[in-house]
């Protein structure tokens, strides 16, 4: 470790993994290429390719030689059903993306508000902190699927005139509330990781507690947790499918409908591929961003 205070701000170690990497010089990773291609050259590359091919060959042989494979192939990988199910599932998936996008508007803001509420100091703010603690404790404590059911079926049943009654609205609300609770905790870990001395020097300038938070602490805190936030986004993208239990015709629901009509499961494969088409690039991007961020930080410490 660098000796504390040398630059006035220590590198923030939110994960233990980054400790292990500290000694190595930062390496630039390209978007897709695994590090062994950079490091050890062609020989390592050939070994990797050969072992991958052998592995896939063995796995494929095992699957294809299993006694039930022909039945499974017809039920899950039927090209005709694939084509037949695709339009409905795709239309449903568009709704997934809409719900995903809408919750992405709500969650970062709501979570930040909760995290800041919880980080306020002084006895006067006790009720504010209490509300924030209750919010995170309760919403993180309930399984998301239960929350979707409770809000999606429960609130519309109350018939409160002022509130919208749509299943979509309440499904979205359940997703957003639950993810806001988790995201608030991520923000809070970022706030806590900003050295106390930063708060002191902001307060010493005569800034109020709120100004110190707004101008000195939060910008650093958010930057600390961007990789963690992006992982949450990946997971949110998939969890949108949970609103299907409210009967909302998103991708999984459409796939189910097709299955119950035809007794063929290929529609699930369609849905799976659609989710992967979003989540794999997203995951790759998060990995790339995280390693780039780490490299930049270790350079900044030189």
């Amino acid at each position, binding site marked *: 470790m660098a000796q504390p205070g*040398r630059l006035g701000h220590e590198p923030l170690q939110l994960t233990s993994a980054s400790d292990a990497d500290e000694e190595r010089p930062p390496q630039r990773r390209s978007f897709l290429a695994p590090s062994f291609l950079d490091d050890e050259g062609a020989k390592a590359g050939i070994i990797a390719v050969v072992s991958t091919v052998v592995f896939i060959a063995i796995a494929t042989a095992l699957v294809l030689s299993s006694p039930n494979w022909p039945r499974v192939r017809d039920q899950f990988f039927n090209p005709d059903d694939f084509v037949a199910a695709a339009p409905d599932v795709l239309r449903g998936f568009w709704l997934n993306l809409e719900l995903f996008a809408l919750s992405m508007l709500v969650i970062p803001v709501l979570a930040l508000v909760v995290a800041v509420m919880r980080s306020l100091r002084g006895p006067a703010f006790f009720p504010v902190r209490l509300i924030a603690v209750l919010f995170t404790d309760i919403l993180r404590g309930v399984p998301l699927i239960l929350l979707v059911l409770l809000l999606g079926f429960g609130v519309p049943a109350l018939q409160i005139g002022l509130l919208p009654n749509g299943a979509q609205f309440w499904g979205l609300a359940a997703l957003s509330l639950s993810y806001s609770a988790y995201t608030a905790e991520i923000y809070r870990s970022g706030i806590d990781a900003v050295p106390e001395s930063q708060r002191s020097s*902001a*307060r010493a300038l005569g800034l109020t507690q709120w100004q110190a938070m707004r101008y000195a602490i939060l910008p650093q805190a958010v930057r600390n947790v961007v990789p963690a936030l992006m992982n949450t986004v990946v997971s949110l993208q998939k969890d949108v499918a949970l609103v299907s239990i409210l009967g909302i015709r998103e991708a999984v629901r459409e796939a189910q409908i097709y299955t119950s009509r035809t007794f063929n499961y290929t529609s699930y494969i369609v849905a799976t591929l659609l989710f992967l088409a979003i989540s794999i690039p997203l995951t790759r991007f998060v990995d790339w961003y995280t390693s780039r961020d780490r490299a930049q930080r270790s350079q900044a410490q030189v």
Partner: protein
Amino acid sequence: MSSHPKLQLHNVHKAYGAKPVLRGIDLVVDEHEVVCLIGPSGCGKSTLLRCVDLLDPIDDGEIRLDGSVISTRGVDANAVRRRIGIVFQSFNLFPHMTVMDNVTLGPRRAHGMPKHDAEERAAALLDRFGLGDKADEYPNRISGGQNQRAAIVRAMMGDPEILLLDEVTSALDPELVGEVLSAIRDLADRGLTMMLATHEMGFARDVANRVCFLHEGQVLEQGPPAELFANPAEERTQQFLQRVVQAGRL
């Protein structure tokens, strides 16, 4: 000219948990005076400065600025802090802001100074402290000495009535100490009231009107530097100064 001393501490007590750090500090700093706090690590120098800037509340006693008590509840701490400047050992510039944004943050947000005025004032001060070309740099791109000078500029931006300096050269490489000390000397020459905790005895002897030796949370002995360094009255002071001389720091 006010009739009160700039800063008065009377019987100030402060404990962190069960550990007493300040145990009845009595101290007066007059306007235009430069007071150096010396003493072994853990004697309470830094805590004393933090308490004066109301960054830590005191447990007992009182602190007066220009004659009015600032250490009681109900005092607008932000307003008090705007009248006091403090510089920390480890600079504590905000790493996500340029030097210019660091030094103008306080005036713009706490004093409500328009951006243009704040930047004009900042440019003049940065120039004076040899940082005219560093305004757009980020703290991690400039040296420790430059960081610390920028931190001094940041503290000076609010035109403080008293400047508190907490071992501002302790985290610096030896060759960078001089530039920071000469910046402080420049401020002392201009008549700024200062209270500084320091291990630089040579500098204390040079720049201070008065040196206070702190021991276990109390002011054990104080006097003009020439006197205190030459003929310390207390045995503890003698021992401390002897160790400093042996370490080659005086």
